[in-house]
C-alpha cells in the first residue's frame, strides 16, 4: 500500500500545449470560485448593480451552472441616485435570467431617519447600512461582489473569500492566508463572507471579456452625447442630483462612463469609443485608472476605500 501511494505513476504521454490565454485562465478561476461558494454556503447572493463588473459576474455564473439556471438571487443597493438606464438594464437582465432581485434602498433609510444625507450629497458611503440590513434580513451567508484588486490599494490586499464580522467589518490585519486554489469559507454565527471571484481581473481584462463573450451592457458605457459640466477634472452629467453651480458651464459633449455608480459622484470621460472594440482600445491606451478618472468619492482621502471597507462596504 505504501509503495503504491508514493509511486503513483506519472503519465508518460507528451501532450501538446493547449492555447489557454489569460482570459480563459481568469474565467476558469472565477467559475471555480463561484461553484465552490455555491457548494459550501447555504444562502449566497450576488451584488448586482448593472455595472460592468457585476454583469461579468452574472455572465460567469450562467456559464458555471449551465444548463441549470443561476442558483442564487441578486441583491442591489440602490442609492436612489442611480442612472435610470442602468436600473432599466438591471431589471431586464434579472427578468431574462429568471432571477429574484432584492433591493436595499438608501432612500428608504434616509426617509426613516436611519441615515442622514451627507453635506456633499454623495450617497456611495451610505450604501453600507442598507447592504448589511439586506444581508441580515435575507440571512445571506455569502455575498458575491465584482470587486477587483486592481481598483484600489486596499482592495489589492483583500482575499478572494473575505470574512466579515457581525458588523460587516473587514479586518485587513487579520485575514486568513489563501493557499493554492483551496478556499476556506467557514464562518461562525453572525459572520458572513464576501466572495470576489474576479479579484484577479483588470479593467482591460473585463472589457476584453465583454468583447469576446458579446455581453450586453447599459448604453452609457459607450460614447454618446450628453449635457455635462466640468468639476474636479471630470465631466458630470446634468441631473437632479448633480446640478451645475452658476460658474460651471453646461456643454453637450460626447462622453462615456468608465464606472456607473451613484450619479452624484460618478463622472464621465470624453470619448469617441462607440463599440466595445473601441472601448478595449481606449482602455488599453488610457493613462488614468478608472476610479481616479471617474470617482469623486475615492478622492476624499488616500485611504477612502479602506475606511469604507472596514465599515462593511463592498
Amino acid at each position, binding site marked *: 500500500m505504501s509503495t503504491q501511494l508514493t509511486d503513483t505513476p*506519472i503519465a508518460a504521454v507528451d*501532450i501538446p500545449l493547449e492555447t489557454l490565454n*489569460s482570459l480563459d485562465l481568469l474565467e476558469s478561476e472565477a467559475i471555480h470560485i463561484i461553484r465552490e461558494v455555491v457548494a459550501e454556503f447555504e444562502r449566497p447572493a450576488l451584488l448586482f448593480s448593472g455595472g460592468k463588473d457585476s454583469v461579468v459576474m452574472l455572465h460567469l455564473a450562467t456559464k458555471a451552472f449551465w444548463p441549470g*439556471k443561476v442558483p442564487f438571487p441578486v441583491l442591489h443597493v440602490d442609492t436612489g441616485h442611480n442612472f435610470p438606464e442602468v436600473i432599466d438594464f438591471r431589471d431586464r437582465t434579472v427578468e*431574462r435570467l429568471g432571477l429574484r432581485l432584492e433591493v436595499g434602498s438608501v432612500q428608504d433609510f434616509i426617509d426613516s431617519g436611519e441615515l442622514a444625507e451627507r453635506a456633499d450629497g454623495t450617497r456611495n458611503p451610505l450604501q453600507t447600512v442598507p447592504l448589511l440590513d439586506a444581508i441580515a434580513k435575507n440571512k445571506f451567508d455569502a455575498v458575491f461582489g465584482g470587486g477587483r484588486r486592481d481598483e484600489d490599494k486596499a482592495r*489589492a490586499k483583500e482575499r478572494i473569500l473575505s470574512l466579515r464580522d457581525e458588523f460587516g467589518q473587514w479586518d485587513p490585519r487579520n485575514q486568513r492566508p489563501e493557499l493554492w486554489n483551496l478556499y476556506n469559507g467557514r464562518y461562525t454565527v453572525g459572520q458572513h463572507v464576501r466572495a470576489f471571484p474576479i479579484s484577479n481581473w483588470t479593467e482591460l481584462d473585463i472589457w476584453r471579456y465583454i468583447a469576446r463573450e458579446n455581453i450586453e451592457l447599459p448604453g452609457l458605457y459607450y460614447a454618446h452625447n450628453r449635457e455635462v459640466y466640468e468639476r474636479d477634472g471630470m465631466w458630470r452629467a446634468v441631473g437632479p442630483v448633480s446640478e451645475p453651480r452658476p460658474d460651471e458651464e453646461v456643454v453637450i459633449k460626447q462622453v462615456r462612463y468608465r464606472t456607473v455608480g451613484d450619479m452624484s459622484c460618478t463622472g464621465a470621460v470624453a470619448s469617441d469609443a462607440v463599440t466595445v472594440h473601441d472601448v478595449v*482600445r481606449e482602455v488599453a491606451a*488610457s493613462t488614468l485608472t478608472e476610479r481616479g478618472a471617474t470617482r469623486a468619492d475615492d478622492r476624499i482621502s*488616500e485611504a477612502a476605500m479602506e475606511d469604507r471597507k472596514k465599515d462593511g462596504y463592498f
Partner: protein
Amino acid sequence: MSTVTSLEQSTLFRFATAGSVDDGKSTLVGRLLHDSKAILADTLDAVTRTSADRGFGGENGSTQKIDLALLTDGLRAEREQGITIDVAYRYFATDRRSFILADCPGHIQYTKNTVTGASTADAVVVLIDARKGVLEQTRRHLSVLRLLRVPNVIVAVNKIDLVAFSEDIFRTIETDVKAVAASIGLNDVVVIPVSALEGDNVVERSAHTPWYTGPSLLDLLETLPTTDELERGLEPFRFPVQLVVRPQGALAPELFTADDGGASFRDYRAYAGQVASGSVSVGDAITVLPSGRTATIAGIDFAGRSLERAVAPQSVSLRLSEEIDIARGDVIAASGTFGEVSQDVYAELCWLSTKPLREGSKVLIKHGSKTVQGLIRAVTGKLDLESFAYEAASGLDLNDIGTAQIRLASPLPIETYALHRRTGAFLVIDPQDGNTLAAGLVKDHPGDHEDERYTI
C-alpha cells in the same frame, strides 16, 4: 504596456516577491510596475505628491526622486509605519504576458506570507541586499520555496549600484546562493544583479554591468514556463467534483425556448469541477475516488459547448456513460493511475496561526473539494530552516514548519506533494473559529513512519 493586437495570445504568469523592506523589495516592485508602464498618471501624481510631502526630492518628477514603495503599500497603517503588513496583489501586462504579482512582506510572519504567495506562483523573486549577501532569511526563504516546489526561483541581488557595480561582489554572492540552493536540493536558481532604485537590469539590461550577460528580470518573467506548461503533460488526470449539475426543473430560461421546451435537458446530469492536473478526453476510462467505481467519459460540457478534451486548469462539467453514485468531494481520476485512498496522512505542515499545534488536536482537513475531520496523532519533527534538517518536536508554533501524522475520519485520495502539486496539498482548518491553521503538503505514505515515536 500591451497592445490590443497582442492580447489574444497573451498568457497569464503568476509570480511572488520575497524579501524585507530593507532589501528594497517594495522599490523593486514599484520599479517593475513603473517601467512596464503599469502605473497610470493619476496614481503616479498621488505618489509624487506624497513623496514630496515626506521630503523626497521630486525634481522634474524623476523616478529616483519618488518613494517607489508608496506604489505598493495599500493600508493606512502600512503607509504610516512605512512597512508592508500583508500580501498585496498587483497587475501589469506586457506584449507577451499578463502578470499577477503577489507582493509578500518579508519581515513579519515571513513564512506565512511566503507560503501564501508561493503556493500559486509560477516563479518567486527573492531579494538580497548586495552589501549584505546571503543572510539567514535568504536561506529560510529558499527552503520554503524548495518545500513548496516553486518551479522557477530567481534571486535578485539588489542595490548593486551601492557596491559600485562590482562583479567580484556579485560573483561571491552568486556562489553562496548556488551553494545554499544545492544544499537544500533546489535546482536551477537564476541570480541577477539589479538596482531597483536606478532600474538596472529590471526591465532593460544595464550598461553598468557589462560583465552580466544574462537576461533582465522582466525578460526572464516573460519567458519562464508556467507551472501548468511544465506539468500538464506529466501528471495524470485528476478532477475534484465541486457540484453535481442536475437542473431538472431549474433550467436556464433560454433553454426553455428551444423547440423541445428543454426536454433534452430533463435528465441532464454532469459533474462540475476544475481539472486539477493532466487532461481528459471523451471516451477516457475513469475511476471515482474513494469509491473505486469506474465509468467512461461520455461528454465534456462547458456552458453549452461540447469539448473533445479538457486540460488543467479548465473549469468544465463531465458527463459519464454510466450512472454511478458521485457526490461533491469525490475525485474523478484516469483509471489505472491511482494507488489507494488513505485514512492516514503523513505531511509537512506550514503552521500559519498564532494558535499553536498540539498533539491530540482535532482539526478539519480541506483537500480538493472535500473537508473531513482529522486528528493530529503525532508531531514528528520540526524543520530547522538553516540546516534544512529536522529536530524533535511535540508541537508547532506560528511560522514553524514540521511533520505530523494525521488520522482522517474518512479516506481521501491523497498523493505526495513532491509529485502532485494539487492533490498533494491541503488546508488545516480550526473547527472552532473556522480559521486556516496550516498549509499541508503530503510527504509520503504514513505506513513508512507508522507510529515511529511510539513503537520504540
